[in-house]
């Protein structure tokens, strides 16, 4: 009846896990109780659970990301705590198995359930607004994606309570992750959490490639797209091309574990190296999936706060495309030590280093954007500077590891761990946090608090150096990664420093939550009346904050890369049409949460081999999709009168904030050496209307 699931699954050998469960279940019960007490379930269902609005979906993604940021960080802190306190030859407070679950969980959660949802959340919020669209191409699919991510996250969470999580590392190398060496439910939880979130991400990729190619406002040619839109296009293409490799690798591994096939086993002709190739065939593009949109955010931030056009836009676009293309040709550098001949290793080594060229160009382009600018030190600009200086070190250690001869020595050591944190924390995390602050007022209608934001920045930056410089040192001292204990007493000194770094980062995370709370408390004072709090240059700043459901009352006409800045300079901003028109928008639907719930139960059932339930879930999903296809009334109409009323209110706010006088001033704002009207490049002036 319940497959392999027995009451034993609830038994946990480790009091720390029991305590974590008490906290998790307690928090869950508390949230449910509060929602019931304040009668918020109806509101949540109508406004959030069933919504297909890309902005709300973006918010849900980021909520998921923040929850997993906490869990992922706690895992990291426990790993640091263990290594700092265990001492040479000691046992420490963690068992080897629990320690392995922690480093596996940390990697899995930070990549799949923190960075990816955070990124996709910002994509959801900003992309349709930047390209002047009213929604993504497939709003329903978008809602399915977000709730699938939530379902996958729930599988990770439930593994803490029922059974255990994988001990095979976030990359799940075979044959260790095979049934013979990992017989428990942990690897299955890991497989299905990744599989469901991977499907969600693939759907997102499809959605955003289509949206960016097909939904741009008239006049926005490819070479007039904002840099963030470009990077998201590249990332979405990478997602669509690379995620199938992961899906297939995990599916074959799941078959090995449940049906008894031998794709990746060490016996019966299985090929353990094939899994590793397939995993990194996805895994390396994944690094760029994570980092490219962050590069896009830095581009937006640098232009906005330097009050200047982006230097070398064309270079940036080519560099981004080059990185995306090259990222598929470097996966072997994750296992130079697997015994290939030097020819193969040299080729992949050079391919890896070649990626440093477009990356270097991007860095220089940001630096030269600052040149002769007027730099305002708002928080996102601090994140950008922190990124520039820190990331270049990560790039250096990356080039070092790209050389097979050096990698033979540094592979699997803490030097490697330091390197990829040195790339992902400044590259991705700082970018995400910059974007978080940058677009927050657009979504919620009030700015985030600057003071707590600065505390958060310094916590992250200083904490990063204190935590990861020691790991570089330890790598050079020969310490391998993933050690629950060690017998070299000289390593402990640096491990203690690294743990102090983790505490400083913890303060940064705390300050970020304080920032959200304080800003919410003072939301009246921090209100953004104009929709353009930063003197923005792209279309999302042309509409109210928060935007109405339909985003743009009138679809804008784009004449320049910095579309909104051009409008302000040429006095076209906030133009009103003679007559507003009815707007058709997609209706809310419960289908996404039904599909997500069924996916969750399917994953759970597969983990525990409850085959009847798994079968029912598959049938239920098919039935739900068929039922939906009979629904012809998927849209509703927002009448022109309502749009007019919204716009009247917005323009009243604009007048109140004295925006129009300010915009008149912007005409003189340009470079005096540039003749009037030259802001629009003549060569790109001819508009070829992109389909909307």
């Amino acid at each position, binding site marked *: 009846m319940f497959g392999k699931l027995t009451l034993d699954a609830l038994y946990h050998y480790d009091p720390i896990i029991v305590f974590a469960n008490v906290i998790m279940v307690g928090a869950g019960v508390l949230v449910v109780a509060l929602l019931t007490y304040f009668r918020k379930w109806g509101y949540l269902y109508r406004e959030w659970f069933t919504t297909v609005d890309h902005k709300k979906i973006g918010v849900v993604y980021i909520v998921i990301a923040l929850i997993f940021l906490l869990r992922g960080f706690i895992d990291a802190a426990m790993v640091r705590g263990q290594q700092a306190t265990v001492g040479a030859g000691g046992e420490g407070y963690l068992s080897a198995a629990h320690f392995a679950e922690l480093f596996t969980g940390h990697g899995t959660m930070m990549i799949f359930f923190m960075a990816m949802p955070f990124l996709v959340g910002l994509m959801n919020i900003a992309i349709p607004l930047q390209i002047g669209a009213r929604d993504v191409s497939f709003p329903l699919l978008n809602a399915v994606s977000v709730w699938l991510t939530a379902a996958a996250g729930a599988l990770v969470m439930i593994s803490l309570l029922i059974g255990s999580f994988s001990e095979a590392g976030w990359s799940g190398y075979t044959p260790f992750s095979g049934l013979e060496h990992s017989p428990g439910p942990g690897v299955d939880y890991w497989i299905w959490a990744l599989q469901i979130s991977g499907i969600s991400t693939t759907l997102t990729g499809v959605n955003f490639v289509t949206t960016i190619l097909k939904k741009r406002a008239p006049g926005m040619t490819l070479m007039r797209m904002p840099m963030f839109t470009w990077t998201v296009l590249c990332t979405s293409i990478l997602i669509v091309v690379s995620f199938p490799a992961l899906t297939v690798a995990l599916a074959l591994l799941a078959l090995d574990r449940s049906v008894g096939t031998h794709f990746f086993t060490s016996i019966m002709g299985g090929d353990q190296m094939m899994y590793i190739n397939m995993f990194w065939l996805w895994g390396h593009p994944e690094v760029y999936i994570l980092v490219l949109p962050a590069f896009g955010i830095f581009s937006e931030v640098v232009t906005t706060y330097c009050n200047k056009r982006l230097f070398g836009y064309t270079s940036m676009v080519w560099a981004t495309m080059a990185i995306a293309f090259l990222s598929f040709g470097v996966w072997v550098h994750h296992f130079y030590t697997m015994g290939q*001949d030097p020819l193969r290793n040299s080729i992949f*080594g050079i391919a890896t280093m070649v990626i440093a060229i477009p990356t270097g160009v991007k860095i220089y382009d940001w630096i030269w954007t600052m040149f002769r600018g007027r730099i305002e030190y708002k928080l996102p600009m601090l994140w950008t500077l922190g990124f520039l200086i820190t990331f270049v070190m990560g790039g250096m250690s990356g080039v070092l590891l790209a050389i097979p001869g050096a990698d033979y*020595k540094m592979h699997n050591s803490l030097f490697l761990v330091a390197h990829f944190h040195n790339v992902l924390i400044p590259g991705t995390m700082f970018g995400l946090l910059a974007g978080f602050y940058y677009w927050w007022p657009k979504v919620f209608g009030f700015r985030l608090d600057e003071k707590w934001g600065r505390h958060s920045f310094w916590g992250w930056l200083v904490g990063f150096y204190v935590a990861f410089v020691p790991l570089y040192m330890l790598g050079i001292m020969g310490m391998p990664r993933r050690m629950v204990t060690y017998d070299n007493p000289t390593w402990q000194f640096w491990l203690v420093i690294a743990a102090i770094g983790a505490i400083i980062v913890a303060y940064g995370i705390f300050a970020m939550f304080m920032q959200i709370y304080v800003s919410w408390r003072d939301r009246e004072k921090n209100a953004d009346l104009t929709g353009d709090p930063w003197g923005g240059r792209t279309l999302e700043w042309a509409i109210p904050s928060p935007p109405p459901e339909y985003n743009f009352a009138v679809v804008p006409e784009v004449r320049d890369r910095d579309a909104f800045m051009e409008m302000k300079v040429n006095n076209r901003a906030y133009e009103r049409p003679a007559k507003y028109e009815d707007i058709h928008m997609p209706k809310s639907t419960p289908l996404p949460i039904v599909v997500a719930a069924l996916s969750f139960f399917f994953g759970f059932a597969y983990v525990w081999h409850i085959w009847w339930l798994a079968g029912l879930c598959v049938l239920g999903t098919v039935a739900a999709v068929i039922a939906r296809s009979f629904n012809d009334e998927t849209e509703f109409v927002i009448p022109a009168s309502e749009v007019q009323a919204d716009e009247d209110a917005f323009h009243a706010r604009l007048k109140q904030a004295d925006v129009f006088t300010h915009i008149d001033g912007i005409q003189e704002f340009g470079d005096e050496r540039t003749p009037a009207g030259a802001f629009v490049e003549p060569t790109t002036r001819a508009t070829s209307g992109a389909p909307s």
Partner: protein
Amino acid sequence: MRRLRVPLIVVLPLLLSACSAQWFIDTFYLNELVTFFTAGPIAAYQRNVMLFTFTVMLFVLVPVVGFTLWFAWHYRAANQKNTYTPNWHHSTLLEVFLWGGPVAIIIILALMTVVSTYDLDPYKPIESENEPIRVQAIAMDWKWLFIYPDYDVAVVSELAMPVDTPLQIDLTSASVMNAFMIPRLGSQIMAMSGMRTRLHLMASERGEFFGKNYQYSGDGFANMRFQALSLSQQDFDAWLAKVRGSGRALDLDAYRALVEPSKKVDPIYYSSVPDGLFGYVMHRFQVGDGKVPPDAVPSDLTADDVAQHGHAH
């Protein structure tokens, strides 16, 4: 009090400069940076590769950090005197340098990469006056078994070698994927079941170096280490005699007991090993369930033949 200050100002820097180097080394354990304090030609070559790369990369690091800080400070909004060119966004000459600089650096590094990758190929024998010693390493849960086929002995958790004599190490695994490395001697290579990989190392000074599995392999991973002993020829012969004198034979029953999971395994000496055991262990993953049956090792199996059927060359 006034009189005290003057000497302090003079003495303190003197004191600091006298003890600072040693103080730094002691406090930060800089003498433990084994990647730089090498004991063999492979590791020394790798150290040079790293230092060369680091030096070349300084031509990236310094300008990036320098320009970032300079522009960030100089063009702050508060400094209204600065030139401000909000529409300036292109300069062909500058772009040529921005692309050309990284290209030049990567060309230099790419050339070095090809040369060093061929030189440091783990499969490439090390040139030496002395004949290489063959070692066959089998990774187990969670210890290393080292077989010396030329001397018909085997050791667990200890790897002895005469100084200035190349080692030719063949590796396989009786369990999951492992990675063999002695940091002070050089390269790392994976050990995988059913397959053979090969690594050449040499110690150019005498001493004891730690070696370890670097690839996570389960509960006993953290303690899966061994001592590498670099000995004079005389001491190595004495060591061999000590191993032979242990009187413990590694027959298939002993092997089957050894291969069972165990943690923190101290050195064990075996005075004899069945011929072809290494190839047989590999072979059993190719044709069987990966476990070694109690009957004798088939005499027609050579490790070279078996390795042909594996995937790694």
